[in-house]
């Protein structure tokens, strides 16, 4: 049973550069399959553990994203990623 959450990326550079790297590093250690889709651009879900895939869905500031986790640690994975996005990747807004 997968869990999903919709969120908005507020970072000024979107999910590029440093924020993308942080997102991938956060997702990588979890056992669950994790995907991220850019709802604002209607992209296919991309592998959240792949930096190149995350970059290629082109998430810009204020884009809505959908993160889906499926596996034994899906809830922890989703919580961790949601917190990273809501804390704006540790940067001031």
């Amino acid at each position: 049973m997968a869990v999903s959450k919709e969120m908005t990326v507020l970072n000024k550079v979107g999910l590029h550069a440093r924020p993308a790297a942080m997102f991938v590093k956060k997702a990588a250690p979890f056992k669950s399959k994790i995907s991220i889709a850019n709802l604002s651009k209607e992209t296919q879900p991309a592998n959240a553990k792949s930096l190149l895939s995350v970059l290629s869905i082109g998430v810009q500031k204020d884009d809505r994203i959908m993160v889906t986790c499926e596996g034994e640690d899906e809830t922890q994975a989703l919580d961790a990623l949601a917190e990273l996005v809501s804390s704006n990747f540790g940067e001031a807004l």
Partner: protein
Amino acid sequence: MKKITGIGVSAGIAYGPIYRYENQLVVVEHKTAADPQAELARLEASLATAKIELEAVLESAMQRVGAKEAEIFSAHALILEDPELLDRVAAAIQEKHLSAEEAWFEGTEHYANLLAGMGDEYLSARSADVRDVAQRVLRILTGRGQKSTDLEHPALVVAEDLTPSDTVTFDPAKVLAFCTAKGGPTSHVAILSKALGIPAITGIGSWIAELQDGLFAIVDGSAGVMVLSPDEKTRAEYQSLSASFQEKFNLALASAHQPAITLDGRRVEVVANVAAVSGASRALEFGAEGIGLLRTEFLFLDRETEPTEDEQAEDYRAVLEVFGKNPVVIRTLDIGGDKPARYLKMAAELNPFLGVRGTRLALAHPKVFQNQLRALLRAGLGHNLKIMCPMVGSLLEVRAIHAHVNQARLALEESGVEYAHDVEIGIMVEVPSAAVMADVLAPEVDFFSIGTNDLSQYTLAADRTNPDVSPLADALDPAVLRLISMVTRAAHAHGKWVGLCGELAGDPLAAPVLLGIGIDEFSMNPRAVPLVKQALRRFSTDQARQIAEKVLQLPTVADVRQYLENFA
């Protein structure tokens, strides 16, 4: 023995073995591989080696340029581990029987093209990162050895071209000299080597083919000459040249912290050109009495987003604090199409030196200009800050600058932020039109600073980055000297001071003529300060004026040089 010529961009003499730093692209040829398992194993081993290399690069970048700039290499490491990329490459090896090289090339190119084609500048920049990582692995796969900036022994580093990330990873203590096939006096390697006091030559072009690894050579960074496999006699000549240069320098250094006072008691201000806080403290060591040109473009280039107002204010304050109450002239953003900033939408230009650069660019991006001006005015509080705008060609631009400065003041006033109220606003004179119209501009500025590098190349229509014509762009050309003299007279007639911040200011040969023309402030690369101070002390104002009068009547640059040698 063979002599080759390029553009001398950083003075000094070095002798040693050549280290050919290869950063040429690896081209992959198609050939099917018989044993997919063997190819997979080769790929895996190469990826592991690449990871170790990147860790070392990351570490040295952290030490030399700081954590923020080093982050790019940690993104590189993530690309090496990217599961989607690795799956794609493995599938190509197993199913299409491609070699590890070809499969890796195809996989990385797929993503590089994808990112480049999304019409987003950040992502285009990431596609360059993907290709950079791809090349690292291909180099290892094809057995080209480590593209290492880790020199085992001191050497002359020779390369086709050097990027900023290349240059920062070399240990300056082991680089005897830099020589590049491309680039000119304004290239990154030129600026960096001058700051570090390392001799450098750029623009050696196709001569590079003769510069083999391990071959011994002499590099003369002042003359822009390289002598391959020199004989004993030549070596001895250069050795004594180098020793006498060093001796003269040490002598001058001993009195570098004394002011430059002419024989008749006139004090001339000798200050430094620097690009960062670290340069500011070095400038103090060499006896600079302030900063005549602080370049700010390094804050803006090689990054993804514009530096914030707070970030800038902090950086400017750090430099101002090094100099306490001494004058610090900070130049506003001076970039153009040759050094584009990713977050400024800049169109490709056929001729960037005649394009949207300097103040033209600032006026086209008012928000960026406002941010910088507010940051400067805030940082200037309690210090002796002067703001200088580059590449100004007309009175309309001078007035637009003042309107911007007023707007920035007003914004700070309204938000109740404290700022410096008495900051002088000046312009660089580097466009011939500004020099010709100096008498019209002078009443509306607080000072001029003459940028002789650009003024020479614009006046003499000679590209300083093109080795075939760069010798024509000589700032001692009487055409340039007459402009300098015109500008100085116009400024003084209106009670304004004139600085000179081009390379000419750092040339002891030019000291008497510039003194005689009436330049008030000499600003130069910090290492030139001791010798120029010493040169200025040898003349009286009257003698210098006579020399200048004579020089301004000479017909050619060769005559000027020959005449000035009499006083050197």
